[in-house]
């Protein structure tokens, strides 16, 4: 290591050795790089989706990709973590999680070992917007992997002993989540937006202790079958190959299931921007989040809004990140995003900010949100750059089948139109800067945001209040504990 210093001195020595300059020698030629003119564009064709069906009428979508010998199969069920009896929060997640804890003749250990012998993975879970079971495997182990998938779906055994363990691991994880600043921020935000509905519902020690394996058996029967499900297949296979393979194993598993419950309605916007502050004494950074529900992804100004978000905070070279990170150095990164769930579309902001710069950073953020409406509207260049980023980057998403298959699932889950994927380029292309400005002004209101800050209240609270913001201290569940 020390010798590096020596080297460094050597490297700093004058220019590379050149012949002694003759008095009349011309000055060394300055390197002028040739213009980086683009090459001829190469065509991109959207990968095809082949549709088939199994069981009575369960749709199967196949996106082929034969580059590597992998196949993935995912079954999406129209059931949610909230599709459970009152007081049983966690039952859907628990049931899905328990599918591989025992199925057919195998116990948890044997299932895991079999998967590894096959070079396969199996995952299952439930969330606020859906539930799924998926496998991925090498082409040459497709048959036995599907056998295992069928066991897990049709013949789970829900051993009580394994649930005792899963539950105690889950409860420990809840404890962990209450010390992690980012997880606290997520929890508080969900609670402030949703109260005790939809994303505000979370399993806790009490609900988990009330869940039994009998509840799981009943939930499995009531909610899981091919009826209403969507099967997504990607990789080194074809429709002709996969449909019979699935039909022979799952085809008869299509008993009727409970109707999915009504979708949630987006929460009303608060009358005034409020900062919900969770005190984490001594925190090196403040975790800062903001959110606001905007409407539906099918609203006509969704595409222009996406472009506005890209320019505002949706990419590295955006107003917010260039200001808070590259100009001020308050953060490692500050991003805004557009996310959707079953209630609609929301605009989000997310950053980790140096404790002592927290109020300064919020001031800059609000400055950006104000200026875009007042004096610094989006420019043609910003909108064209944003469009270029989304359109230009589009083909890479199709390198593996997962993205397109995920879009098919999203289209169904969020009731998106049939041309959601195929019309994407067109929707973005015909958006003008005026459309973008209008969409932004109609949607984002800096005076009605929900903020969550997890940080050292003693150091940051008064600075935030001095910005004229309402601050409410909350506990780890997001409930008010004091505040003015």
């Amino acid at each position, binding site marked *: 290591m020390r010798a590096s210093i020596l080297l460094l001195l050597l490297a700093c020595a004058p220019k590379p050795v050149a012949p002694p300059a003759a008095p009349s020698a011309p000055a060394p030629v300055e390197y002028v790089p040739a213009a980086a003119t683009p090459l001829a564009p190469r065509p991109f064709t959207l990968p095809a989706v082949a549709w088939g069906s199994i069981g009575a009428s369960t749709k199967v979508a196949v996106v082929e990709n034969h580059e590597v*010998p992998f196949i993935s199969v995912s079954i999406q069920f129209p059931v949610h973590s909230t599709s459970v009896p009152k007081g049983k929060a966690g039952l859907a997640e628990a049931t899905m999680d328990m599918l591989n804890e025992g199925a057919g003749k195998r116990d948890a250990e044997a299932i895991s070992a079999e998967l590894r012998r096959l070079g396969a993975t199996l995952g299952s879970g439930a969330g606020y917007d859906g539930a799924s079971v998926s496998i991925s495997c090498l082409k040459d182990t497709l048959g036995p992997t599907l056998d295992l998938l069928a066991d897990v779906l049709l013949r789970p055994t829900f051993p009580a002993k394994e649930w005792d363990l899963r539950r105690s691991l889950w409860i420990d994880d809840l404890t962990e989540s209450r010390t992690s600043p*980012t997880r606290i921020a997520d929890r508080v935000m969900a609670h402030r937006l949703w109260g005790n509905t939809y994303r505000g519902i979370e399993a806790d020690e009490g609900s988990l202790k009330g869940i039994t394996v009998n509840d799981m058996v009943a939930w499995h029967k009531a909610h899981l079958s091919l009826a209403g499900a969507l099967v997504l297949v990607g990789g080194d296979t074809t429709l002709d190959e996969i449909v019979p393979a699935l039909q022979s194993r799952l085809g008869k598993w299509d008993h009727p299931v409970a109707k999915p419950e009504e979708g949630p309605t987006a929460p009303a916007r608060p009358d005034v921007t409020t900062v919900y502050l969770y005190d984490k004494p001594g925190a090196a950074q403040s975790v800062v989040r903001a959110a606001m529900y905007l409407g539906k992804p099918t609203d006509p100004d969704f595409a222009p809004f996406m472009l506005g978000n890209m320019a505002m905070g949706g990419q590295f070279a955006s107003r917010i990140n260039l200001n808070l990170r590259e100009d*001020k*150095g308050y953060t490692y990164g500050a991003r805004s995003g557009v996310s959707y769930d079953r209630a609609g579309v929301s605009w989000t902001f997310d950053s*980790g900010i140096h404790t002592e710069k927290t109020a300064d950073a919020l001031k800059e953020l609000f400055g950006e949100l104000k200026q875009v409406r007042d004096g610094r509207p989006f420019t043609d260049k910003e909108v064209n750059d944003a469009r270029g980023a989304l359109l230009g980057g589009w*083909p890479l998403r199709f390198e593996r089948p997962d993205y397109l298959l995920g879009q098919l699932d999203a289209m169904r889950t969020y009731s998106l139109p049939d041309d959601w994927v195929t019309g994407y380029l067109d929707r973005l292309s015909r958006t003008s800067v005026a459309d973008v400005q209008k969409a932004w002004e109609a949607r984002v209101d800096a005076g009605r945001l929900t903020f969550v800050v997890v940080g050292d209240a003693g150091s940051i609270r008064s600075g935030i209040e001095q910005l004229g913001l309402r601050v409410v201290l909350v506990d780890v569940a997001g409930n008010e504990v004091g505040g003015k």
Partner: protein
Amino acid sequence: MGAAMSLLLFSAAFAGAPDVPFTAYQLDNGLKVTLAPDHTVPFVCVNVWYDVGSKDEVPGRSGFAHLFEHLMFNGSKHADDDYFKPLQPLGARLNGSTTLDRTNYYECLPSEQLPLATFLEADRMGWLLDALTPTKLQNQKDVVRNERRQNYDNPPYGHAWLELLGHAYPEGHPYHIATIGKHEEIEAATLEDVSGFFRTWYVPNNASLVLTGDFDDAEARALVARYFGAVPRGPAAVHHPPAAPAVFTGEEKVKVTDKVPFEKVWIAWHSPALYAPGDAELDLAASALSEGKESRLYKALVHDKQLAQDVTAYQGSQAWESLFVVSATAASGHTGDELVAAIDTVLAGARKDGITATELEMGRKDFEVQFFRMVSTIQGKADILNGYVTRTGDAGYLQKDLARYTSTTVESVNAALRQWLPPDKRLVLTFVPEAK
């Protein structure tokens, strides 16, 4: 034409090996070039690895290799603006990363923009310093210190890796301080440090360029020659690996009290360098110990005794020497000491009876699948090839790398396990929650 090789090295248990055709050559200035076409989508990845990491920093300047990486995005002589600005509007994905061993940069973008990506990568390789300012340096110090706060200072257990390296390697050892560095040393960096580091390490003869994706071979070669060929060769980069690998002479115990919810332990042993004999064997030993619910540690600690929430074993391979680590988080009501005792029981059993042929087969399968996954995207492919070129000089090392796993035997894995994981020479790091 390189090695789209079909060496029939593989046992019947193997579905095959990823086929990654490539061409490799070198420019006069010493830059190693690898072209690996892949026409799945009309995108190309330009990927450069510099053989410099935090291991090459000088004393008092920890975190510098990474801080420097940030400065590589703030403009160069002929493109003096943030590098994201011209690239993002084209749909490019770009980033860089720094480890103990190496630094990489990449941009994946539509194929027709290959000229811009090669121009920009070459420009910062050759002419970074002309665009450097004190303001840029100060800004990136602030950004990097925030990166440290976000990823290491703020999350529970975030300092574990820093503590692990700090205690596993003696002061002055190239791996003693984690790549992110210390706040005060990041703050101490000067413009002179930046130019010295650049001239020492950021020379084409200490770098490797890999292009993957949908490009025309002749066009790519011409662009590489035009832009990278203009970068002058620098002095040979001389690394300073330790004369002898670090060793533990006994068991070192370290307890750290922190804002964490549960006790958590890390047990670390010094182990063979990446690609050295024993490295692949320890990867496979780690699989047998903690991969899947049937693995020895999971079964004992999480399932049967329910002492731990999780347990993981891995061989953390690095260029000069490695650490083999077993870590576990205590379940509520249990302690780090209980975890260590239970881990020791499992390890004693493994040393005594050895892992079985079934366990070995499953471990090999894990790695077979991993190889396919790594080459399934142009970005992954570029990094894996560049890793091979940088560490072995051979872009075709993929097949040899795979063979390291297929050629292991139960005997060789067990020998490695017995040799490298002794019960009495190791580091035991425990994080303990602060008293309420």
